[in-house]
Every structure is written in C-alpha cells, then in structure tokens.
C-alpha cells in the first residue's frame, strides 16, 4: 500500500519538473508566437472598424485577454495556495509564487489599455465604478501577495502567510466578473457570456480568441520558466542540479522512475 503510485505527484519532484519545463516551454513559445501573429493579423487587417467606435475598439483584442488572464492567474494562484496549505507540497508554493508577477503584469496592462480605450469612447480615463475598482483591487492583491512573501524572513512562514492572502483575495475574482451585472457600472456588460454567446462579428471574435490564446501561452511559458528558476535558486550545488547543469543533458528516465510522492 505504501508503494502506491500517485502519478500526478511525479512533477512535484524538482528534477522531474525541471525537465518537463525544459521540454514544454519552447513548444509553448512557438504556440504563443503563432497565435500572436495570427491574432494581430486578423485584428488589424481582417476585422473591420466598429460601427460606433471606429478603430479604437481594436484595443479590445489586447485589453480583454489581459483582463481575463489577470483573473484566471489569480484563481490559479489560489488553487495552488490551497494545495500548499492543505498538503504542504512545496512545488505548489513555487507555482503560486511564480504566477504572481505575471498576474500583476496582466492586470496592470488591462487597466492601462482600458484607460486608453476609455478616454476616446467614454470620455474619461478612469472612473470609480465597480468593475474598474475591483480590478484595481486585484492588482493590489497580486502586489500584496508578493510583498508579504518577501517581507517575512522565514520562507516557510512567508509562504504560508502569502498563500492565505491569495486564498482570501480569491473572493474578488467573481466580484470582478459579475460586477457589470450586479451593479450599474460605466463599463459595458459582457460581450461574451457563458449563457448568451458572443455579440460581435465573427472576425472580431476570432481576433479576440487568438489574442487570448497567445496571452495564455505567454503566461504559461513565463510562469513555468519562473518556477523552474525558483527551483534552481532554492537548491545548492550538491543536489539534482548537478545532473542537469547543461541544457542538453539527457532527460530524466520517465518510464522507469516510480513516483514516490515524496514531499521535496
């Protein structure tokens, strides 16, 4: 019984995770590049100007993906925080911590592009309506997570405190998402809703979805690399890093290795 295989714990072993990232990230970068080029092409050369907004609406193709990724990365960070707090799997903490800077960047970009879109269309860069305010709170939650983690000298304690903050703040994600339905906001309602489908022309939707795919792939590549780097930083030269010290070293034998479920 105690030799039970738990395959999904395989990549919580740093060495295995290192090799997974080493193999996956170049592929993810390629996907990101292809989707970004396709999305920009459709967004700027296929999708026609909007009947009301003209060309300023093209900001949507980057604004919406970054806003979605900000919320998604926060939710993902909270999931890893739960795993870390409940099972004390260190890899989950590494993942959560690696998501935070990219999540903060995505949220900041969504606020920035939103302001530049709001200026010509709404007539204002910023208003304190429920959607914009809750998104700003999301940015502060990401920054708070990073600050709290860094502020506590004992890494284990800092990790736990930050994970707790990530968990509490996850309440904000549904608030952002549904804010345009729950309150009167200056921000318009959902163009793409779970119930109602999409209310935009197919070429516009295509550009938006390609942009979202590109953003998702970028975030995946960057956060996996950051987690990998964090693992290197936590190691000393006597451990597994010796065996993978060059990039072209052979990968860990996947078929033979028995996942031990060992907490590393």
């Amino acid at each position: 019984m105690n030799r039970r295989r738990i395959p999904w714990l395989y990549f919580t072993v740093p060495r295995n995770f290192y090799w997974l990232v080493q193999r996956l990230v170049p592929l993810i970068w390629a996907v990101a590049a292809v989707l970004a080029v396709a999305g920009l092409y459709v967004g700027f050369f296929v999708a026609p100007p909007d009947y009301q907004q003209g060309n300023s609406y093209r900001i949507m193709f980057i604004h919406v993906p970054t806003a979605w990724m900000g919320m998604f990365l926060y939710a993902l960070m909270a999931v890893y925080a739960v795993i870390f707090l409940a099972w004390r799997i260190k890899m989950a903490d590494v993942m959560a911590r690696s998501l935070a800077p990219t999540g903060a960047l995505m949220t900041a970009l969504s606020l920035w592009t939103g302001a530049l879109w709001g200026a010509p269309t709404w007539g204002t860069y910023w208003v304190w309506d429920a959607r914009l305010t809750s998104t700003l709170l999301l940015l502060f939650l990401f920054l708070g997570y990073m600050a709290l983690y860094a502020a506590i000298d004992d890494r284990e304690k800092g990790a736990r405190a930050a994970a707790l903050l990530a968990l509490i703040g996850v309440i904000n994600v549904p608030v952002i998402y549904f804010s345009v339905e729950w309150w009167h906001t200056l921000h318009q309602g959902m163009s793409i809703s779970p119930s109602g489908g999409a209310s935009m022309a197919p070429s516009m939707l295509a550009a938006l979805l390609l942009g979202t795919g590109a953003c998702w792939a970028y975030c995946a590549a960057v956060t996996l690399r950051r987690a990998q780097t964090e693992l290197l930083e936590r190691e000393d030269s006597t451990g597994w890093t010796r065996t993978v010290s060059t990039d072209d070293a052979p990968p860990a034998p996947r078929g033979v290795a028995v996942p031990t479920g060992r907490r590393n």
Partner: protein
Amino acid sequence: MKKRHKRLTIILGALAGLAIATALVLNAMRDSMVFFVTPSEVMAMSEMPERSFRIGGLVEQGSVERDQNSADVVFHVTDTDKSVVVTYSGILPDLFREGQGVVAEGRIDSNGTFHANKVMARHDEEYMPAEAQEAIERAGHPPDAGEGY
C-alpha cells in the same frame, strides 16, 4: 480523519464562511455602491440631493440641442419611462449619440434640471462592422440601443 484532510476541511470551511460574509456585505452595500441612478430613481426621490451625483440612461432621440455659439448642449436622459433634462458645457465623448447610453455627473437644481460638469458615454457590448449595422437598418430593425443603461 487524516491531518491534511482536516487542514483542507478547515481551509474550505473558512473560505465558504468568508464568501458568505462578503456576499452579505456586498448586498448590504448595494445601495451605496450605485455608480449612477436612473431618471425613474431620481423622480422617486422625496427630496433632491444637494451633493453631486451621477445620472445614467439613454440620450433621448431628438432631444439634443447644441448652442451655435458655444459648447453648451442640452439633452434629455431617459430610461424609456421617465426623463431628466441635462445641461452641459464642454467637449462630449466620441460615443455621445442620441439613443446611446450616457452617464452625467453633476448637481440637480430645484426645477429638476441636471447641471452636468462631466459627461461620459456608455457603450453597449455589441461590436459589429458598419456594413452589418446598415444592413440591419435597411431591413427595418434598428439596432437595440442596448438593454443596459
């Protein structure tokens, strides 16, 4: 119960409690968190507020009057039931149009005229090419100005 299962139960229980607390707080704050009030809500007020607030709705069709010599503009904000006269002096946003959503910030006087010091356009969540919109108009179905205002 294993220790880690107990931990997970505590975490999820605390999270559920927090979610309920947040829902209750947000629900209680609903009235004070309104970004704008509708003309019907303004009419229903027993006394007009002294302080500055925001009013939101649609720019009533055919109500926009621009002064030839200045940037003054007068229009009606409607929620299709009641409407309020709004005066404003300044540059209007791109999307300010008759039949489109608008949010005006300012004070209301004793006659019920709203003096705006800021006008923001509120667009709907529809995006479409100009040709598609023209086709819809030719077919005799003017695009809905958006259910939200």
